[in-house]
């Protein structure tokens, strides 16, 4: 059957076996488990240093109560980072291109921040719906606008990650198709396209890391407002 460019994003299936399970589990297996020793091997030490860096960066703007979210947010960014970066290898499937996975992560976590705020400090959470210093005639319109922007947050969070990664993978596939197709006809143009592909791959590595960071950063910002 003829494949279209979008078929790389269909949930992978081999002989009827869904492969989404190994594609989700394998990035987790790449994270090392430290031993019982005080000083571990270099990989574990680098992992620990990196985790510490991420945790400090995420937890600095949060108050003491927000530090309970440290494990959740750090493990989320590590999972997204590893999944996004591994998806850049050829012939791998990136689960974060699936809207189902990103919405499954974004919606419950956003809802958790919202409910935390509404439960512990309801008037302060609702107070975010009206920015300080708005002129009185604008108040009803602004409350509706702020409520809409609040409710669209999980959708934006999930779709942002999905769209960025999907678009990146699609671009890589399109440009590599162009490179291969141009090779017999115009090899110099093909070389130029290969150079563009190289630069695009570097961009995609950056995008993979940035999108993972942005996802978790926005969640921590929503948490900051509500905790």
């Amino acid at each position, binding site marked *: 059957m003829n494949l279209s460019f*979008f*078929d790389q*994003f*269909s*949930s992978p299936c081999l002989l009827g076996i*869904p492969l*989404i*399970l190994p594609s*989700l*589990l394998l990035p*987790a297996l790449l*994270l090392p*488990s*430290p031993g019982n020793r005080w000083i571990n091997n270099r990989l*574990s030490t680098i*992992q*620990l240093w990196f*985790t*510490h860096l991420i945790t400090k960066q995420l937890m600095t703007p949060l108050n003491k109560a927000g*530090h309970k979210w440290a*494990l*959740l947010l*750090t*493990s*989320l960014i*590590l*999972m997204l980072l590893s999944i996004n970066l591994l998806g850049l290898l050829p012939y791998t499937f990136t*689960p974060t*291109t*699936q*809207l*189902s*996975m990103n*919405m*499954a*992560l974004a919606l419950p976590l956003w809802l958790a921040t919202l409910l935390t705020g509404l439960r512990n400090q309801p008037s302060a959470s609702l107070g975010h719906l009206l920015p300080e210093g708005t002129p009185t005639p604008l108040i009803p319109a602004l409350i509706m606008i702020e409520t809409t922007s609040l409710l669209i947050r999980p959708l934006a969070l999930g779709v942002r990650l*999905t769209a960025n990664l*999907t678009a990146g993978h699609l671009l890589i596939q399109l440009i590599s198709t162009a490179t291969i197709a141009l090779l017999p006809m115009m090899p110099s143009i093909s070389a130029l396209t290969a150079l563009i592909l190289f630069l695009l791959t570097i961009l995609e590595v950056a995008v993979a890391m940035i999108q993972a960071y942005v996802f978790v950063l926005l969640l921590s910002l929503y948490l900051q407002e509500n905790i």
Partner: protein
Amino acid sequence: MPQLNPNPWFSTMLLTWFTFSLLIQPKLLSFTLTNNPANKITTTKPTPWTWPWT
């Protein structure tokens, strides 16, 4: 767009949360940091002194 096919949505959601909460979080939790987390220590300002020029 194949991402909008609702068939695998439930299993993807379930597997994502299983991986996230049952695999990655315990692995991360087993890393122990050497120092306890503490706020930045604000040292007392040292008393300034000038060089005793002769």
